[in-house]
Structures are given as C-alpha cells and as structure tokens.
C-alpha cells in the first residue's frame, strides 16, 4: 500500500496562499486527482503532478482575502513609521547608541573588507593570471634546506618549455638590484624599479602598452620600455618613442625607448618603471642557458586546461635529468615548485622576493576581526531591544486588545529594526567616505572606493546587511509579540529564564571576542616592538649612508674612492667612513658557494657575501669572537666570517676557524679566515641569522656609510654633497639614514599593528555601548527590588555590588574563555618569527583587567543611579 497522502510541502503552500472558500473545492479536487494518478503511476510522478497542480493554482482568484483585505497593513506603514520615530526620540540616548554602534561596526567591517579585497586582488588583473606560475627554487645540502628562493637558474625556463608541451611559454626577469642611474640630457636620475625582461614578458603578463608594439618591443638589445609616469619625470613633455636615454648597466649604455606602458598597478607583485630588453644581457654569458647563477626570475605560462599539479609531479624527474649526477656528487639536491601567480603576494616568503609580501595569516585575522565586530554590534541590538521589550509590553498589550494580530506586531518591530539599521547603514556610508583618506594613510595601501561599484561586492554587502536586519529583528519580534495579553496588562510579566540565559550568553560571547582581539593585538604590538628594539649586534644609529656612484667606470672609481673617504674624514662631524657592498637593513643578494679548502666539492655550501673595507667592523661596532679585523698590511687574501658561517663550514668553534683556508667554489680561490664576528641582524628580526662571509675590498662598491657625531645635520650633508660633486660629477647624490632605512622593514608590520589596534578599540567600544544600554534596562527593571532592599536596610554600596555582580561574573567567564583561545592563536602566530617574545601571563591578565575595569565603569553609571534613588519614589504607587 502506497502512502496515500500527497506531499506535505506543496499542500502546506496551498493552504497558505489559498482562501478558505476556494480551498474547500480546490484541495478536494487536488486530492482526488492525486489518488487517481497514484493508482496509475509511481508515487514520485504523482507527487510531482501534485506540486505542479498546486503551482498552477497559484493565481489571483485563489489568494486568501488576507492578502487584499489588509490594505490596513499598507495604511499602517505610515503609522509604524510614526511610532518608530517616536520611540527613537523617546529613548534618545539608546537609539543614538544603537545607531552609532551599528554604524561604526558596519563601517569598520566594510573597511576591513575593502582591505582584504585589495590584498587578495594581487596579480589577478592579468588575463592569464590562473595559468601563470613562478618557479620557486630550493637548495638542499645534506638534507638541510639552505635556500628557498624566488629566483632560479636561467636555463630552467627554456628547458621546461622544451621538455613539456603543456608549458606554452615562459618569461624571465633579472633585477637591477638596488637600482641604477638613468641619464637624459645630462640629467642623472637614480631609478630603483628596473628589470631586464624577455620579449615574451608582455605577452605572458597583461601590462598594456600605451605606445609601441607588443610583438616587437623588448626583442632588440639596448632597447627599453618606460612607464607613463617615469617618462614624464625624465623626459617631461617630450615624445618618448625613439629617444635615447643612457642607462648604467655594467657600463653606461645608450638605450632606445621603444614603448611606454601604463603605470604598474599597486596590486602587482612585480613593480617596475623600466624594462630593458633581455637581449641586452646576452653578452654576460649566463643569462640564457646557465645552471650556476640564481639570478633569474622565471615565470611560465601553461596551456589552457593544463593541470599544474601534474606538471609539478614531473619536476623531480626534470632535476634528475639535468642535474641529478652533479648534485648527488656534492650531497645536495634541488627542488622546483610552481607557485601560482595569484598566491605569491599572500603565501610566498622566500629569499630574493621582489618586494616584501603580505601574509595570509594577517588577512585571516582581519576577516575574523570584521566578523566579530559586526556580530558584536548585532548582539548589542538584540540585547538592548529585547531588554527594552518589557517597557514596550504594555504598548503591545494595548495593540493586541485593539485587534492587532501577531503578524502585525511582528511587522511593526521589524519595521523599527529596519529603520534603525537603515539609519546605521547611511551613517556608516558617510563614515566610510569621510574616513577614507585617513584609512588609506593608516594602512598605507591605495584602497579605492571603486570596489563598491563592483556588483558582486555590492550584492555581498547588501546581503550581509539584510541578513543583519533579519537576525537582529527576529529575536525581539519573537520575544515581544508572543506576550500574552492578559498578563501584560495585569503587569504580571516576568523575565523569561531562557531569554535571560540567551542574553547572558550573548554578552559573554561579545566580551570573549573583545578580550581575545585585545590580547592578540597586544601580542602583535609587543612582538613588533620586541623586534624593533632588540639589540641587532651592531650599532646603526647616527649613520648617513650615501649610495655609491653608478655612472663611472671601475678604474676611476678605485682611484677616486680614497680621496673621497679621506676628504670626508677631514670633516669634524664624521668619525668613520666605510665602504661596503651591502648595509644592514637590506637582503644580501650575493649568495655564493664556499667550502673548507682541503675538502672536495661536495662540501660546497651557500653563503651570503659582503665586501667591506677595514673600517666596516669598527664603524658598526661589530664584536669579534676571535681573530682580528682586516688591515692594509694583509698579505694573503682573507675573509671574516660570522658565527652562523662557522657552523655551516663545520668548524669546531670560532677559535678553530682562525687561520683555516676556505675556497670560493666559483673561482677556485683560497682565502684565509682571519676573524669571526658575533652574529648580527642584517635584516629585520623576522629573518634568522644567515651564514655570511666578508671579503676585504677597500674599494667596495655599493654604499658609503658615514658615522656622524651629533652635529648640524644639514650642513654635514651639504658638505658631503660638495665633496661628492667634485669627485663624482654626473652622479646623483642619494643618501639615507640607516636607522630609518632599517626600520622600513617594519613598515608593513606597523601599518598592520596600527590597523588592528584601531579596530580592537572599536570592538571594545561597541561592546561597551551594548553593555551600557543593557545595564540601563536591567537596572531600571530592578528599581523596585532595590527600593525594597533599601527600605529593609541595605546601604548604597551593597546594592551597587549586588547589581554589579551579574556583569562581573559575565566578564570573568568571558576572560576564562578568551584566554586559552587567544593563547592558541598567539602561539601559532609567533611560530612564524625567528626571534619572538615569550608568552607571559601579563599578556592575558592586563587586557582581562582592562576590559573588566571598562565594563564595571560602564555598568556602574546606571547602577549607582538606581542604587541612590529614594525608595519612596519607586514604591509609593504600590
């Protein structure tokens, strides 16, 4: 026997929309038809026909009269609006706080959303973005990773394309490093954002050319592409195409401008103002097919539909084919990984990155923050309006007596919620637009308001806000409209225990979230501060660094360098002058092979290499563990190494290293180790100590660091510049202060810290707004109780503590929940730092106490007012 009952949902739907009059015959007919169909065919078919029939009957004639008759409802909207307005005015402060809290929360969440959208949009503007991959190169020695880098050998790109048909094309980039000099009309400019790029670059990526031809640009040696803004900066209003500019690449080289591209968008991980054709580098010999130098950034474009995981699985065999034997003989191994282009900005943190990348953890943290902020504001609304419900119970009672039904009362309260939410959204929009420039400055990123024009973004936002209205409207509606008339009007209404529990739960959630966010923010702040204030192992204060001249040949430089240094030392304000290839605060880009001289090739390892003169160590106050500094009288080629290098070279200790010979793998030259220095932080404390080898090079070419004594900076700089102009004419004088330069590495961290500090203050502020309003309503409800207690002899302080107790317990519970959760998050986050703070109890206690204090202060305003009321006033009417 089949189930004789028609499917329930369509049936219910029918009953819902259909008037009773039509329903009688229509439903009967439908049931009868259903039975007949059921006898003939399967249940599913009959069910479907039934549903179809119900839908076919969904026509105006069948609609219940309640859909028309209540033109009253439409008429009532005007009334609801009036009542909403009156209530807004009647509870001025609380309406204001409600709207303010919601508006700030919506604005904060939207701003965070905007930031997250920007960070996740990196490189997605390329039309082939999902098919482009960067080659990540990892080098292992004795199973230990020595280098995970963004750049690789130049031979990898062509070999990949040759071996695997799914590789449609590839393109290579070589960086100009710290920049070079571009000269036009004898006017030198120091330019930083420059690359050698292959002709395929413009086809793989989507950087549109304004002038020039994508097909031929970058194909000829000594040709150059220039950005719109750089063209304006260097050529002014002249037509750039076919102009010759002089670029210092190894030596001053005249290059012809063959194209102008649009300025690179801020959300590109490759940022450049100039692209020099790759063919220009062919004479160097190692830029086309070399398996030794790790200077080439390689991007490959896969065929449409090719699966990069499959190609990834073939790459170990690729290494085996080209380098297997060579690598095995030196007990090392290499690994290539395909990095999806759009993942680079948030998921890649390698050696030789093109810029300091973002971090997906931060994005994740911000999303959680945004969700918490908006949830807290919604909870405020729910709590306050349902606490307020008791005040409005009488109004509801009267309405019910006058004939309002459940639906109408629900509609009215939804209407009020919608009014408040709409006002909040409007305020939020104003806030977002007015705060926009400050927010941009705060986060240091161009956050365009244009994202809100995007339909997808707009729909998402509106959906979330609509969800908020429904969520915040639903609970008070249910709570208020379900009051029984008689008990309301007789004044017997009590707090329902479930409602009170829910409210407590929500408050606990709010404060757990706020405390958690504050603890995390403090941890982040302390960590960044810890990194910045940690001793670096060298002194970087009071250094003026001058970038070495680029526009000069090797021999003249060496000839000029001594007079320049000596000239500067004559200045009374300058206590040291030292030349080096790198200064603290930048990544050492030279990474080369060394081993102990009498060992075989398999003992080769990677080291960072810095060339310095004999003043470097004393000027930077670097301390020697053993051995001595370089000096003019050195007879043999020698090196100084750091402690990390002692370890990597496997010397017994620093003492043992002195006098040992190390061999430079690429040139087979032997050096004697004459000194070991203590590890110092070359980069920010996010990085570990790297094994480093210092060469003696009195004419080290990179930077001149000037240690200054306290004196008039302006005059010192102008004197240095005068010396510079006379010795290195035609070179731009560029300088920076080393401590600023070093701290630049923390710029992003500080921006992030500032941002989350602002938003965690917002969180606690909104949570307190809610607490303030809630405490008002609960205190008012207990005035009679307080009156009786006072009549019976309770004093003000005991009444206050009674009223405070409820809230204090909630905040204590919130603390107990927040501590372990934030501990987990913080310890996970700190793992990413080589040098991190210890997690101390104060990290949890201080925010906990702070929130408790703020909470108690918030609550005690109303509490003390209620506690001080004269019992006669509240009791005389009973």
């Amino acid at each position: 026997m089949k189930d004789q009952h028609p499917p329930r949902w369509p049936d219910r739907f029918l009953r819902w929309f259909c008037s009773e009059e039509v329903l009688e015959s229509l439903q009967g007919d439908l049931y009868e038809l259903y039975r007949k169909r059921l006898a003939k065919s399967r249940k599913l078919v009959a069910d479907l026909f039934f549903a179809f029939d119900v839908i076919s009957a969904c026509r105006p004639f069948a609609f219940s009269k309640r859909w028309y008759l209540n033109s009253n409802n439409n008429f009532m909207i005007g009334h609801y609006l009036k009542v909403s307005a009156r209530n807004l005015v009647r509870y001025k402060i609380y309406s204001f706080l409600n709207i303010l809290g919601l508006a700030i929360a919506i604005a904060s969440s939207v701003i965070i959303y905007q930031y997250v959208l920007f960070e996740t949009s990196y490189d997605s503007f390329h039309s082939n973005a999902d098919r482009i991959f960067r080659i990540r190169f990892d080098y292992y020695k004795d199973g230990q990773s020595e280098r995970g880098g963004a750049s690789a050998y130049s031979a990898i790109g062509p070999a990949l394309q040759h071996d695997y048909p799914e590789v449609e094309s590839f393109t290579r980039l070589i960086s100009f490093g710290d920049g070079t000099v571009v000269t036009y009309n004898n006017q030198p400019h120091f330019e930083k954002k420059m690359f050698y790029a292959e002709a395929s670059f413009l086809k793989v990526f989507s950087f549109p050319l304004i002038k020039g031809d994508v097909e031929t640009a970058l194909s000829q040696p000594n040709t150059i592409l220039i950005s719109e803004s750089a063209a304006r900066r260097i050529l002014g209003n002249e037509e750039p195409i076919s102009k010759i500019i002089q670029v210092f690449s190894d030596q001053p080289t005249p290059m012809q401008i063959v194209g102008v591209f649009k300025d690179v968008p801020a959300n590109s991980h490759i940022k450049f103002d100039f692209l020099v054709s790759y063919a220009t580098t062919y004479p160097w010999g190692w830029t086309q097919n070399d398996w030794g130098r790790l200077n080439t950034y390689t991007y490959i474009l896969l065929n449409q539909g090719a699966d990069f995981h499959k190609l990834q699985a073939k790459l170990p065999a690729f290494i085996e084919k080209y380098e297997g034997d060579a690598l095995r003989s030196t007990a090392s191994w290499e690994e290539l990984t395909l990095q999806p282009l759009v993942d680079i900005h948030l998921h890649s943190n390698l050696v030789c990155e093109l810029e300091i990348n973002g971090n997906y953890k931060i994005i994740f943290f911000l999303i959680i923050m945004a969700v918490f902020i908006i949830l807290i504001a919604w909870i405020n609304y729910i709590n306050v309006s349902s606490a307020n419900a008791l005040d409005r119970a009488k109004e509801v009672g009267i309405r019910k007596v006058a004939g309002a039904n459940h639906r109408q009362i629900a509609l009215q309260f939804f209407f009020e919620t919608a009014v408040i939410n709409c006002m909040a959204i409007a305020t939020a929009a104003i806030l977002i637009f007015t705060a926009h420039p400050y927010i941009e400055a705060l986060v240091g990123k161009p956050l365009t308001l244009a994202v809100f024009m995007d339909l997808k973004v707009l729909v998402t936002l509106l959906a979330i806000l609509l969800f908020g209205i429904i969520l915040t409207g639903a609970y008070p509606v249910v709570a208020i409209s379900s009051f029984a008339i008689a008990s309301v009007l007789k004044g017997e209404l009590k707090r329902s225990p479930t409602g009170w529990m829910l409210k407590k739960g929500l408050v606990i959630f709010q404060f757990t979230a706020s405390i958690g966010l504050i603890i995390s923010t403090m941890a982040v702040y302390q960590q960044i501060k810890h990194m910045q204030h940690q001793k670096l192992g060298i002194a970087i204060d009071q250094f003026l660094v001058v970038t070495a001249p680029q526009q000069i040949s090797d021999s003249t430089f060496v000839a000029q360098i001594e007079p320049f240094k000596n000239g500067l030392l004559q200045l009374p304000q300058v206590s040291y002058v030292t030349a080096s290839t790198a200064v603290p605060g930048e990544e050492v880009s030279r990474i080369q092979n060394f081993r102990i001289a009498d060992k075989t090739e398999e003992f080769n390892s990677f080291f960072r290499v810095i060339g310095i003169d004999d003043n470097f160590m004393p000027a930077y106050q670097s301390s020697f563990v053993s051995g001595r500094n370089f000096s003019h009288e050195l007879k043999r080629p020698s090196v100084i190494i750091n402690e990390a290098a002692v370890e990597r070279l496997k010397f017994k200790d620093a003492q043992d290293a002195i006098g040992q010979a190390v061999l430079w793998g690429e040139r087979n030259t032997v050096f004697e180790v004459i000194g070991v220095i203590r590890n110092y932080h070359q980069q920010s404390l996010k990085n570990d100590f790297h094994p480093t080898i210092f060469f003696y090079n009195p004419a080290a070419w990179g930077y001149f660091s000037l240690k200054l004594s306290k004196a008039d900076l302006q005059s010192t700089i102008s004197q240095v510049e005068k010396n510079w102009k006379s010795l290195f004419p035609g070179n731009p004088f560029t300088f920076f202060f080393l401590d600023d330069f070093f701290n630049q590495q923390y710029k992003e961290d500080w921006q992030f810290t500032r941002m989350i500090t602002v938003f965690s203050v917002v969180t606690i502020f909104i949570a307190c707004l809610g607490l303030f309003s809630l405490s008002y309503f609960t205190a008012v409800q207990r005035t009679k109780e307080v009156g009786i207690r006072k009549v019976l002899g309770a004093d003000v302080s005991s009444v206050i503590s009674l009223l405070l107790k409820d809230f204090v317990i909630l905040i204590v519970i919130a603390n107990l929940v927040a501590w372990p959760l934030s501990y987990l998050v913080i310890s996970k986050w700190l793992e990413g730092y080589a040098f991190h703070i210890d997690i101390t109890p104060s990290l949890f206690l201080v925010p906990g106490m702070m929130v408790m204090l703020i909470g108690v202060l918030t609550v005690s305003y109303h509490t003390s007012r209620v506690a001080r009321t004269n019992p006669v006033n509240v009791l005389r009417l009973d």
Partner: protein
Amino acid sequence: MKLAAFEELVLLVVGTLGDEAYGVAIKETLQEKLGKNPSIGALHSALYRLESKGYVATREGGATAERGGRRKKFYRITAYGIRTLEEVNEMRVKLARQVPGLKLGFK
C-alpha cells in the same frame, strides 16, 4: 467579450454534465471529449469567473475521505448562462454566414 473561448468550453461541459459537474469531472470530460488538458488551476480559475459572472450556480456536495475530507462543489448552468451561450452562438453563426465558402451544415 462575455465569454472567453476556454470559459465557453467549460460552461458547455458544465451544461452537459448536469448534476454531476464538479472540478475533477469537468476536467476529465474536457480531456475525453475535446482532447484538452487544462491544469486544475486554470480550470478552477475559469469556474470562478463563470460563477462571478452568474453563468453558473453552485451547491455543496458531501465530503469523502478520498478528497481529504473536503466537500465537492457542484456547478449547474443558470438560465442566464444558457441565454448567454445562445447569444454567443447566434452571433457566431451570423458572422459565419457572411464568410463565402463556409458551409454550416451539421454532419
């Protein structure tokens, strides 16, 4: 227009069924005799209009379990309904006579 085409058909069927005209019966007759298969919604909608125009009168029948305890609603053609049918038919025949080559004989 006094009667839409579909309404006219339904009215005719109500007339033919006499005392037995209710939703399902009308639907089945339409199906058997005319090869029409209107949805129940369309049918009820037409019946509702006929009723409100006064072409049919209704009476309630007994409830059965088969119909989920719902009563049948029986339709009967009214005198006004019959007159309207006649008028419509007359008008149609009058017009049809003026069409050259159209034979109006009954087979």
